[in-house]
């Protein structure tokens, strides 16, 4: 059971990376099916490989079983590492008065989506923030917009609505307190907080 969950997650992770390479928008509902297909393909390829191995055992000189296992573990570890590395990014930044997810954050968000999809009990709070410029209430709405953009992206890539909670703090909780673009850029963000 755990194994199949992993295969699914792994497949989604891989698929996610591939989708990242070719997609530019967050709303990619059609990619969902593609992702599922990808996962199935990966799983069935594994099965095929096993079948081939069984057939090959007719020849006593070929002992491919060990090699396959080693290769499999290597991939597993790599995938885990790749996904873990991507998931280390939990803060995503935005341009002034914008709530469009930037291209450079999408691979990491895909990894989060894959993780959420594979771990249905996982819950994450999407915390939207704005910089200090402009007005307090508009920034509250803007922070929510940003968190909602991330929510849509995660859902489009396999996360389910009940895993995602959106909250905005507007400009009330800056991480950088300077009154300059460097600080503002750090403050225009959505933070993923796993519960």
């Amino acid at each position, binding site marked *: 059971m755990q194994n199949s969950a992993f295969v699914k997650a792994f497949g989604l992770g891989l698929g996610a990376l591939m989708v990242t390479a070719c997609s530019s928008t967050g709303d990619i509902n059609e990619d969902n099916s593609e992702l599922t297909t990808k996962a199935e393909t990966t799983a069935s390829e594994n099965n095929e490989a096993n079948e081939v191995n069984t057939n090959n055992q007719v020849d006593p000189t070929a002992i491919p079983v060990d090699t396959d296992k080693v290769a499999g573990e290597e991939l597993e570890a790599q995938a885990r590492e790749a996904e873990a590395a991507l998931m280390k990014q939990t803060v995503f930044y935005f341009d002034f008065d914008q709530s469009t997810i930037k291209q450079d954050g999408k691979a990491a968000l895909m990894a989060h989506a894959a993780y959420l999809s594979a771990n249905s009990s996982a819950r994450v709070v999407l915390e939207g923030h704005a910089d*200090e410029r402009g*007005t307090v209430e*508009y920034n509250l709405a*803007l922070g*929510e917009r940003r968190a909602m953009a991330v929510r849509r992206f995660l859902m489009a890539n396999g996360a389910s609505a009940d895993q995602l909670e959106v909250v905005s703090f507007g400009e*009330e909780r800056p991480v950088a307190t300077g009154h300059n673009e460097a600080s503002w850029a750090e403050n225009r963000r959505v933070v993923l907080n796993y519960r």
Partner: protein
Amino acid sequence: MVTRTLCLLGYVLGCLLAFSARAELVIEVTQGKQSAIPMAVVPMSWSGEGELPEDISAVVENDLGSSGYFRMLDQANMISRPSELDDINYADWRNLQQDFVMIGRIAQDASGYTVEFHVVDVAKRLEVLKHRVKGKASQLRDIAHYISDYIFERLTGIRGVFSTKLIYVTTNRERSRFNLNYADADGAREQLIFTSPHPIISPAWAPDGNKVAYVSFESGRSAIYFQELATGKRELVIKMQGSTSAPSFSPDGKRLAFVHSKLGNPDIYVLDLDSRNIERLTNHYAIDTEPQWMPDGKSLVFTSSRAGGPQVYKLDTATKSVDRMTFQGNYNARPRVTEDGRKLVYVHQRGQRFHIASQDIRSGRVQVLTNDTDLDESPSVAPNGSMVVYATSEADRSILAAVSVDGDVKFRLPSKYGDVREPAWSPIF
């Protein structure tokens, strides 16, 4: 006026809030009117025992000076300090080029303090104002503000707002503590009325001045609370899924406009405070927020991103029709309206800077009021429509500043510590 007198006599509970020793905010006038009236406030005589607990004359002088309408004579330059009409030497004051002189006497008896004051017109050698005001020991500043209001209204024709109050939010650097404060309009007698580790934003006054609404994040997301000033009693106002914010009382106090957002789509709603019925007024995928009632109570102004960036719109509460009001620049938000309904005041981006601008509603003419400050936000208009208090940035901190609606008068209310934000100017009680 009747209410005010009652206040001073101590019959109204709202005026009995405890006295606090030191003000956090102190007014510094940075720009006055060119046409400011030269006036001398002579320190009034004191016939009671011991030292007068509050320098009433100094408070009056500070009030009138900070308005920008008067240019006050420094006490050091006064040749004489009369307290009786007969002792006034008009020639002295004419030489000092003063238009008006205020003199007076403060006395104390078992019932409290009594101040009698006169204002004379130096050129006409004539007494123009004569008045008596009474109050308790805890009301000496109220007495002073009453005198200031009385003089201001009679000499300028504009209602004074020196007896009004401010509420505002203070925070520490780390944003780990948020305080909602209540103070005199000159920043004195600051009192903490609510404190929280979670953000507090958007304080708003009920028109009767007895209650305030504000947004607190104590539940984990923004929600509107009412708080009665006299009792401190709090109430979570709206129990809707999602978040609520941006409360604004209608001029008659019977309805509350607010923003409700569920799944990232903030829209304008109105709550009937008697029936508790809620009506949705906008339904647009863009951001709709920061509603504020027009003085007629029939329409609202609000901020919307429906044209891309934030702009100010007017909303008819009956027909729900929406009309755009601002057209200059890419960022116009958080509208406020003067009580005569003639001017719109809002946050306006020019280049990379954020200023407070006023717009004549009929002609559409826009005037940037605050060229000398940046990162300006949260404008709140005084109940006489003369001044706008707002939050701005100074030396890496957030402070309050004020500017007259015509841009002529400017003053700052710097604080000793922390960031001061989100001011809301009270109605005239």
